[in-house]
């Protein structure tokens, strides 16, 4: 009874306390340590300061790497959105068979390892790969194109690998859509394009945002795909962090890179969420 009284302030969230303690020790504390280490001026760990951050801003290369990484996330998210909506619309109108097929196709890559999917893209995009062989056989290309180790190849590969993360929330949000709204739009003479643009898209923003954030986070941090499909010439944040930490052993700089990278991702997620919420309020209020 005494114990029960003592635990009372935690109330109903009491069962969450073990995990909260675990996260505090191995998730929150490490990030705090990362922040502290990023504030050391050199690998000798003597003086504190913002040296690493100044180094980041002033060396030109690092800022470029961060920019490229965020741009990659943006491109992949855009491609995923463009593919997920048609898939979702067909799912919405489809019968049992069509729905089951689409769901299976979405689950399949989600459940096969990302390394396997990356490897598949190497086979598809390689010098003797499917695309090159097909193009040569059709006589469309005179010589094998450089598809592997190119920006376009990397975007397509990542988009395919992350598409399930986008498709599931988008489909879920389409299913929650009130069908009578579409019937009303139809009855009032709106074309299919207009229905998509003025009814479906605005009302499925939550799904698109949820999926978009997952795809953005996953594609910016996809170390394996970035190194294998992007190759050595496309340097992105995860590779940069890995090389600084493990290759050069410059922990303060690697820590600063990680902190900057994390802050960017968090800030973007926050802004996109805030935008979506304002948007939804507008839709519901109107």
């Amino acid at each position, binding site marked *: 009874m005494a114990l029960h009284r003592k635990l009372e302030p935690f109330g*109903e*969230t009491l*069962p*969450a306390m*073990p*995990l909260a303690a*675990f*996260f505090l020790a*191995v998730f929150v504390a*490490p*990030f705090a340590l*990362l922040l502290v280490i990023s504030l050391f001026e050199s690998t000798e760990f003597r003086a504190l300061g913002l040296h690493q951050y100044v180094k980041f801003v002033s060396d030109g290369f690092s800022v470029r790497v961060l920019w490229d990484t965020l741009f990659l996330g943006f491109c992949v998210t855009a491609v995923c959105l463009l593919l*997920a909506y*048609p*898939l979702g*619309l*067909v799912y919405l109108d489809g019968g049992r068979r069509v729905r089951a097929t*689409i*769901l*299976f*196709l*979405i*689950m*399949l*890559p989600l*459940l*096969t*390892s*990302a*390394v*396997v999917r990356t*490897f*598949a893209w190497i*086979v*598809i995009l390689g010098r003797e*790969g*499917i695309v090159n*062989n097909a193009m040569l056989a059709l006589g469309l290309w005179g010589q094998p194109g450089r598809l592997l180790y190119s920006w376009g190849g990397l975007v397509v590969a990542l988009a*395919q690998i992350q*598409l399930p993360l986008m498709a*599931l929330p988008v*489909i*879920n949000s389409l299913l929650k859509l009130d069908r009578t709204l579409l019937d009303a739009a139809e009855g009032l003479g709106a*074309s*299919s394009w207009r229905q998509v643009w003025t009814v479906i898209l605005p009302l499925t923003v939550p799904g698109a945002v949820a999926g978009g954030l997952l795809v953005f*986070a996953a594609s*910016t*941090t996809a*170390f*394996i795909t970035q*190194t*294998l499909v992007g190759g050595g010439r496309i340097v992105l944040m*995860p590779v940069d*962090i890995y090389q600084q*930490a493990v290759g050069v052993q410059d*922990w303060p700089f690697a*820590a600063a890179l*990680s902190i900057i990278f*994390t802050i960017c*991702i968090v800030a973007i997620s926050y802004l996109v969420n805030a935008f979506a919420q304002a948007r939804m309020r507008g839709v519901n209020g109107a």
Partner: protein
Amino acid sequence: MARRFADLVYSGVVWISALFAMVLLLAPTVVVLIASFTGAQTLKFPPPSWSLRWYYELLQSDELIAATWTSLKVAFWATLASGMLGTSAALGIARSSSAWARFLDGLFMSPMVLPAMAFGLSLLMVFSLMSVRLSIWTLTVGHIVICTPFVIRMVSASVQQLNPVLDDCSLSLGASRLYTVRRITLPLISPGILAGGFVAFLSSFDHVPVSLFLSDARTEVLPIKLWQILEAGLDVRVAAVSGVIVIVTLVGLVLAEWLFGLGAREQRAL
């Protein structure tokens, strides 16, 4: 008439894009399966000849088998721990709308969005500061954090569908809280726990960024081993490993669908 035409174009565009997306989703898996049965030394596609030689090679590469075992062990313990911690946490926060519960929910879900590279590096710093030697257990600690969001998401979805009256009935009939959880709540949400565990296991087995920092030569995990092989050059053995993973996943997917209807549940959770 113009509108009829616009609608026709619309259907065409949607269907063609959707078919393209479906082919894109399926193609890599099929390509890997076909490539793994090649009889040649290179990954020329389509394969010039067929054989099972690369699967046979797999059986003889001790390093790949060792890495697979490490991955399976880490995934097992990470699933077990995140399953217990996550289920308990989901019971505490899923039905509460208090600010504190929302905060905890955000904290527990954040490993899904924060860069895992940063988390892996920070955990490595903690371990080396405390002079803890890297082992399969330090690796497992990192994986538990990565797996937990999946468990919480799946179990929370189950908990939210639960009728709270059932709990009240049990309590008013004199059962203790613990007894109610054990006999009423847990059995009812067990499909959610199983689905969460399934996804947690797969995501641990597949996880790279954290392992990149926390595994050493003795605790090499499969995805990193494969990455190293591929960095060194295109080795057809990777196709065979991929083939095995695809086949095992397909069988697992069919079994899971058959046993628990996992597909429908996953979709509800998202």
